[in-house]
Structure formats: C-alpha cells, structure tokens
C-alpha cells in the first residue's frame, strides 16, 4: 500500500502483462458492446460477401464440375479471406480508435510495455474476426447449409495462419498511420486488397503470370488458400504448405512488430505520442 492508501498489484511478470492486456481489451469491449451498429457492421460485410459468392456458386454449379465436388469452394474461400481481412482490421482499427480519442498519451504514460499494447491489439483482432466471420458462418449454414467445419481440422491451421498474416499487415499499417498521421487511415481498409489478387483466394496461383506467382510464393495467404483447395477438391491436407505459411508468418510478424516499434520510437523522438489525434 502506498502513502495514499492505494495498493497496486505486481507490475512485472506474465500475470501483470495479462492484466494490462485485459484492460486494453476491456476498453475496446466497452466500446463494441454498447454500439450495436458497430457489431452489425462487423458482421455485415462478411455476410453480404458470403451471400454474393453463395449465389454465384448456385449459378455456376451446373457448368463447373469442381463445384459439384466441392460446393463450398467459394464460400469457404470468402470466409477464410474474411478471417485475414478482419484480423488485419482488428489490429489497425484498435490503433486508430486510440488516435481518434486522443488517448495514446494516457496509455503511453501508464506502466504498459509495447508488448502489452501490441498484445491488446492482437486479442482484439481475434475477437473482431470471431464476431465478424462467426456471423457469416452462421448465415452460411442457415441460408445455404454450408458449414465451414467441412474443412475439418485443417480449418484451425488455415484460420490461425491467416489471422497471423492479418496481424502482420495490421501492425505495418498501424506503423504507417503513426508515422504519417490519420491522413493515412485509408490504408487500414485498402492495404489488404493489394494482397488479395496474388493470394489466390478464389483461383489457383497457377493462373497468375510467372512474376506474380513468384510474389505469391512469398505470401503465407497464397500457401494457405492452396492448402484449402487441396482439402476441398482432393481431400488432401498439405502440411508442407501450412509449414511454409507459418514460417513466412513468423518472418512477417517479426517485421510487423519491428516496424510498429520503430514507428513508436520515432513518435517518441518527435514528440507525437502526446499530440496525435483527430
């Protein structure tokens, strides 16, 4: 107990870090849970996109043999894509939220390490992805009798691999927003779509020109979507593709954290932590 009669919990160790991450999650959960429009908007886009691809599947099924064998080909792809997209948005939007509320200064004078701060954004990313994609999965079952769980246990590897790549992009985007201010906010929504065409979400990467295939090989998402197609079309789990994706994810995640840490260092040097905001 200190002189003012306040007792503080231990400040070091895993439990202390988990408590601070919990506090950051609590801050965003308060915001989400009191705003139904926010929750609806998180579920709205994944669900609408899923419905669009489901109807496209119904239209193409009579002419496309592969859809007869794997009717969930496109729906599975769009749901997995949304795990990546929501995972990235979950990181970037949690960060942007702090800038909008001019709260960054309060957070960075609290006894919170950068690891805690990043940890809070990653946990929020999982929760946002779970809410957004969860609703879309539910509607896929209710409307089209498609269950994402037909992917079986590989689904876990694909989901974890994709959300990790989303974290890496989300951290890089947050670093750019911290560097250039809220004028760069559009990156949070747009950056991921640079990755989409070369990830082979709806088609095999073999249809891409050679030089784009070379770029695809560097993206964890391309390997994971190839893995998804192997499961859906041939009933084969390609552990090698998942292993490559996770190795690349480790690299990109380390790069994302390093970029974000460098942006925070620069903001600390330039005195922008207390002043950034709307």
């Amino acid at each position, binding site marked *: 107990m*200190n*002189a*003012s*009669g*306040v*007792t*503080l*919990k*231990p*400040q070091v160790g895993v439990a*202390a870090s988990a*408590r*601070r991450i*919990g*506090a*950051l999650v*609590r*801050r965003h959960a*308060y*915001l989400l849970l*009191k*705003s139904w429009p926010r929750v609806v908007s998180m579920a709205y886009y994944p669900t609408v996109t899923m419905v669009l691809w489901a109807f496209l599947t119904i239209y193409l099924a009579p002419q496309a043999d592969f859809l007869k064998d794997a009717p969930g080909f496109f729906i599975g792809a769009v749901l997995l894509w949304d795990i990546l997209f929501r995972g990235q948005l979950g990181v970037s939007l949690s960060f942007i*939220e702090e800038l909008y*509320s*001019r*709260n*960054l*200064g*309060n*957070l*960075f*004078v*609290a*006894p*919170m*390490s950068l690891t805690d701060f990043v940890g809070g954004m990653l946990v929020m990313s999982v929760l946002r992805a779970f809410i957004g994609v969860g609703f879309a999965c539910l509607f896929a079952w209710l409307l089209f009798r498609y269950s994402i769980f037909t992917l079986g246990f590989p689904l876990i590897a694909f989901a974890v691999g994709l959300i990790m790549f989303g974290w890496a992009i989300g951290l890089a985007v947050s670093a750019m927003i911290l560097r250039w201010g809220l004028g760069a906010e559009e990156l949070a929504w747009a950056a991921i779509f640079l990755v989409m065409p070369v990830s082979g979400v709806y088609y095999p990467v073999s249809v891409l020109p050679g030089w784009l295939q070379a770029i695809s090989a560097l993206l964890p998402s391309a390997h994971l979507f190839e893995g998804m197609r192997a499961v859906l079309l041939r009933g084969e789990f390609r552990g090698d593709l998942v292993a490559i994706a996770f190795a690349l994810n480790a690299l990109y995640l380390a790069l994302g954290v390093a970029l974000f840490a460098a942006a925070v*260092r620069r903001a*600390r*040097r*330039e*005195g922008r*932590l*207390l*002043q950034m*905001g709307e």
Partner: protein
Amino acid sequence: MALSTAAIEVRELVKRYGAIEAVRGISFEVRAGSTTALLGGNGAGKTTTLSMLLGVLEPTSGEVRVLGIDMRRDRLAALPRMNFTSPYVDLPKRLKVVENLRVFADLYGVVDPAARIAALADEFDLGPLLKRPYGDLSAGQRTRVSLAKALLNGPEVLLLDEPTASLDPDIGDRVRTGLERYRTATGCTMLVASHNMGEVERLCDDVIMLRAGRVVDRGSPAELVARYGRDTMEEVFLDEARAGDVPPMLAALASPQGAATGSERREPESP
C-alpha cells in the same frame, strides 16, 4: 552514500527538433513532497520538459531521474508510481466515465478499483457523472475526470500540465483544494505547468522559470515577487516573459505608454 531527497532530477536536458532547440540544457531538482511550478510563456519548453519527464518524449541528450529511476533506461519501473494530466490528451469519448476510470485502474493494477473510483468520485464530485459518456461532459467536467484518472494509482509524483485550464473559478478552486488535500495526505511531489499565477501562488512552494528552453530563475513565489520588486506572481511572469527578445510591436505595447500592463514596470533586481 546519502539518500537523495529529490523526487525528480534533471541534468543537462536538451531537446532539439532539427534546427530548433526546444529545451537547452536545463538542470533542476524537485524536492520530494514539494509542489513546484514550471512557468514560462508559450514555447518556453514546459510541456516538452514534462513529456521528457514522463518518458513519452526522448531527450536529445541529458538525464532524467524520477524517484531515483533513470527514465531513459527503466521508465516502466517509475510509471506505476507517477501519473499526469494534460489538456493535450483525452479519454475515449464514447466510454462512460466509470468505464474509463476502470480501464486505467486495471492498467495501473489498482487492487480494489471500485473502491478507489468511488473515493475519487467523492473527492472530485464526479458521482453524478460516472454513468455518463465522457464525450458528453463539459470541458470543466472532463478536466475533473482527467484529474481523477491521474490520482487512480495514488501517485508519488504527479505531473500536471495546466490542471485547471477551462475550469470556472468555483470548480477550479475545488480542484486545487483536492490537490492540496492529496498532497497533505500523501506527501506527493507535484510539478505543475501553469499559466494561472493565482494557482501557482496558492499551490506551489517553488517556481522554476523557463524562457526559450532555459531555466532563467528559480525560487519560492514570495522570493520571486520580492526579487523582481513586484506585488504578484502575475507581474513577475510578465516581466520575465517580456525580458527576452521582444518584437518591437510587443515591446511598444509593453512599455508604460502602451499601458499594456496597467502598472509602471520596475526593473527586476538581480537574482
């Protein structure tokens, strides 16, 4: 080795932004348990200095120690024991006051957050505001909430940047009374950047005067008033603020003919 009685130690602190030198090698100590004012006009380096003390702004060179802890090396060890409030930062506007305070109580690791929030709500008359979104509050109410946030962890060192800006005299007085009570009860060290000279005279037992990033004078309010041959800290502040390179137009305004101060200026005595 003798124990230092300084809660804050600053040595040769410099902050440069490119060619601009915002803080120019300042050194000072703040005695444990004292309330010290950082005074100076706009751009004197007050907020820059406070930011470096908090570790949210990296000094170009120099040393900052808070409670004996080097803020450049180990700020996370000092931060649980200190806190701050500033008009430059805000709290999430859509969160209720009680939710904001709960988040920060958890961040600081307060053992009984509900009891602490209730005590602070009582101290700063926040009871009726606790369930309201922070963004719906008036500027004065927000300032009180920010002060409550700054006291959540029972800080031993409190950095206050314009703590009563935008408060009406009544609420401003209550806040100052709250801060005085907190200091008396806890022996907290406070460093206050303020433009409110009445506040400085009432709260502070020591004043550090900054001009253009340098410490130009120091003493108790009474000592400074006597040294400058003035009646109030307001007049001391004006003398000091206008003692540097003043643009001719401002110099003319500040002259007796300009009647800017409404009183005949006397030359300050040598410090």
